[in-house]
């Protein structure tokens, strides 16, 4: 039984990494505004969200199974507080850090309508930080480090993200590259409630 938990934790961790890679690529794809991956724009956007929620499910399984695992000896505090673990604290801590960032991204996305687009976008940028952290966590703490298949998966995931980020930074990225960037007065950027207050 304990062996089964250990295998499950490792497997679900790898699946999370693959899903998060897909989520990053789809997120960049949906930002482009061009139909990407042979899908219409709204489908890219919805697939991005649903793949992200699925990744969270696998991540939850990954973490909860390690709570009962005699090797990792995870405690509840290790869910949120990085670098204080019993087992390879640094590499485990990267996992905790990545998880914290991801929770912030998911919660702000679910509350997007309440917190406003600007705050949501600022937090969403953390995805670019949490993905490499997740990758490093898998390679560093993973008991499968050194196996050819984990390296193959990691290299493939890295290639996908590097290509996606390269596309993001290229000039032909958005649908209308020739469109001028608009400059919006700071006054107009305030949340609507505040604007209304000022009118009153």
């Amino acid at each position, binding site marked *: 039984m304990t062996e089964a938990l250990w295998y499950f934790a490792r497997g679900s961790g790898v699946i999370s990494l693959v899903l998060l890679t897909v989520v990053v690529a789809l997120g960049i794809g949906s*930002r482009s505004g061009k139909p990407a991956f042979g899908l219409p724009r709204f489908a890219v956007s919805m697939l991005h969200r649903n793949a992200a929620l699925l990744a969270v499910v696998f991540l939850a399984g990954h973490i909860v199974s390690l709570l009962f695992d005699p090797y990792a000896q995870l405690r509840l505090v290790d869910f949120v507080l990085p670098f204080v673990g019993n087992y390879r604290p640094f590499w485990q801590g990267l996992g905790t850090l990545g998880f914290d960032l991801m929770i912030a991204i998911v919660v702000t996305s679910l509350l997007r309508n309440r917190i406003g687009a600007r705050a949501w976008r600022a937090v969403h940028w953390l995805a670019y930080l949490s993905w490499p952290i997740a990758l490093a966590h898998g390679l560093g703490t993973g008991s499968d480090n050194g196996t050819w298949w984990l390296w193959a998966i990691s290299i493939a995931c890295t290639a996908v993200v590097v290509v996606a980020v390269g596309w993001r930074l290229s000039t032909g990225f958005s649908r209308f590259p020739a469109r001028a960037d608009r400059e919006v007065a700071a006054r107009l950027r305030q949340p609507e409630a505040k604007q209304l207050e000022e009118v009153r």
Partner: protein
Amino acid sequence: MRLHIDWTACDGRGVCTELLEEMLTEDDWGYPVLRDGKGEIPRALDGAARRAVDRCPRLALKLTQQ
């Protein structure tokens, strides 16, 4: 219900024009244009309108009661 487009927020990403093409079309720069000019939402399109509002990456769409 009516659909309101906040032009200070809209960036013409084109998600709404796909989800609600019965009501919206794109101008030459990819910004949405209300086909009827008023944004009156027929009952049959309630769901599609809500989805378009939910999926706008800039939160530039709103449903209003007037």
